[in-house]
């Protein structure tokens, strides 16, 4: 790691001020991606702003029938929350499948979505549930608009994710085909029947999470495995790498969609 200054603000306002005053500073949430990044010297921040002690960024509450989850809430807290299990069990199941127990004890929702790793799990839930990302600048960004590209988001350089609001779906489930070493999704599909229609979000398959609109249309007509069978997934924009070829990922999207459908009921 390169050397850096360290700040541990006690409030969101203080964190936002530190970040605005230091363009070379970076935010640290759970650190399960950022600390390895620092160790590999892939980043050289002048200062690290640790969000771990800001009480207002943490916690899970019911809001408008759905859930609002603070940005620094740990994956293990979401996975083990009776409230999440009752309101959106698919979200608890997704959190339970991230990384491994130690990673889930540190890693956070806000860190995951702000990093926007193409193979991360949470972006699929944010898009798949039509969630809204709230920020330190008072913005509410629709999940569909938040993830803008590989490791890119709609956040401004001095903007901090404060919470995510997930509306309660009628039905939802997430299924992923994990890389056996990292547990990142080679393909992950989050499928939801919501008040606004059927939503299908795919992670791991392309440079950024995306909505599989052909699957959405087919499932809106018929909520069935047969409807998924009838869809052809275009592999031309999918990733090919050492883990899987694009055509295999296209195949896995349908398989994961069917598994999610079976789990959602």
């Amino acid at each position: 790691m390169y050397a850096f200054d360290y700040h541990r603000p006690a409030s969101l306002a203080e964190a936002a001020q530190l970040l605005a005053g230091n363009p070379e500073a970076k935010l640290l949430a759970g650190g399960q991606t950022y600390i390895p990044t620092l160790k590999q010297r892939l980043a050289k921040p002048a200062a690290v702003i640790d969000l771990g002690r800001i009480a207002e960024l943490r916690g899970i509450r019911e809001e408008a029938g759905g859930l609002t989850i603070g940005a620094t809430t740990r994956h293990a807290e979401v996975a083990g929350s009776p409230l999440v299990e009752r309101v959106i069990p698919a979200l608890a199941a997704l959190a339970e499948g991230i990384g491994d127990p130690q990673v889930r004890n540190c890693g956070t929702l806000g860190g995951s979505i702000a990093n926007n790793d193409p193979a991360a799990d949470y972006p699929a839930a944010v898009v798949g549930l039509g969630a809204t990302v709230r920020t330190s600048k008072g913005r509410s960004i629709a999940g569909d608009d938040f993830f803008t590209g590989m490791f890119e988001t709609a956040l401004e350089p001095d903007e901090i994710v404060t919470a995510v609001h997930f509306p309660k779906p009628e039905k939802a489930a997430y299924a992923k085909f994990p890389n056996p070493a990292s547990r990142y999704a080679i393909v992950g599909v989050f499928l939801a029947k919501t008040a606004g229609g059927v939503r299908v979000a795919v992670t791991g398959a392309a440079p950024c999470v995306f909505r599989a609109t052909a699957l959405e249309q087919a499932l809106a007509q018929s909520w069935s495995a047969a409807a998924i069978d009838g869809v052809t997934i275009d592999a031309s924009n999918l990733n090919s790498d050492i883990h899987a070829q694009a055509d295999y990922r296209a195949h896995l999207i349908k398989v994961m969609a069917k598994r999610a459908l079976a789990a959602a009921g």
Partner: protein
Amino acid sequence: MAIAVSMTVNGKAVGAEIEPRALLVQFLREHLRLTGTRVGCDTGQCGACTVHVNGRAVKSCLVLAAQAQGAQVVTIEGLARDGELHPMQVAFSEHHGLQCGFCTPGMIMSAADLLQRNPDPTEHEVREWLEGNLCRCTGYHNIVKAILAAAQTMRGMAKAAE
């Protein structure tokens, strides 16, 4: 610029001036000389550096020492009580839950966290839980056996205490 950190490690208040980039595992091993916690892969994959921070298993090579300011930290050295090994340590010894032993401290700390939240895990649950701990000798079979045996012992102890 050095910063001051203080925390409780194995029940003892400790503190030091450290660089902000110092990892928790470096603080434990190099400042406190608690070398039971291992650095295996140093990339967050292997879990040999697992310790408890405020009661939860974390990989101490993926946490800055500064992040643990004020925390209750327990390492493998802190599991035994009054000269008596923790039941998990006894079970690893009895069931030979190790080959070379390098991963053992991390395995034991991780398994102890599992039993805190699930006192009666199935074999499948134990194996799933160990996703964060690698044994390069592939000695998983006896590790799982040891954890299941420790779970039984600890359930018996909890019942006897009632």
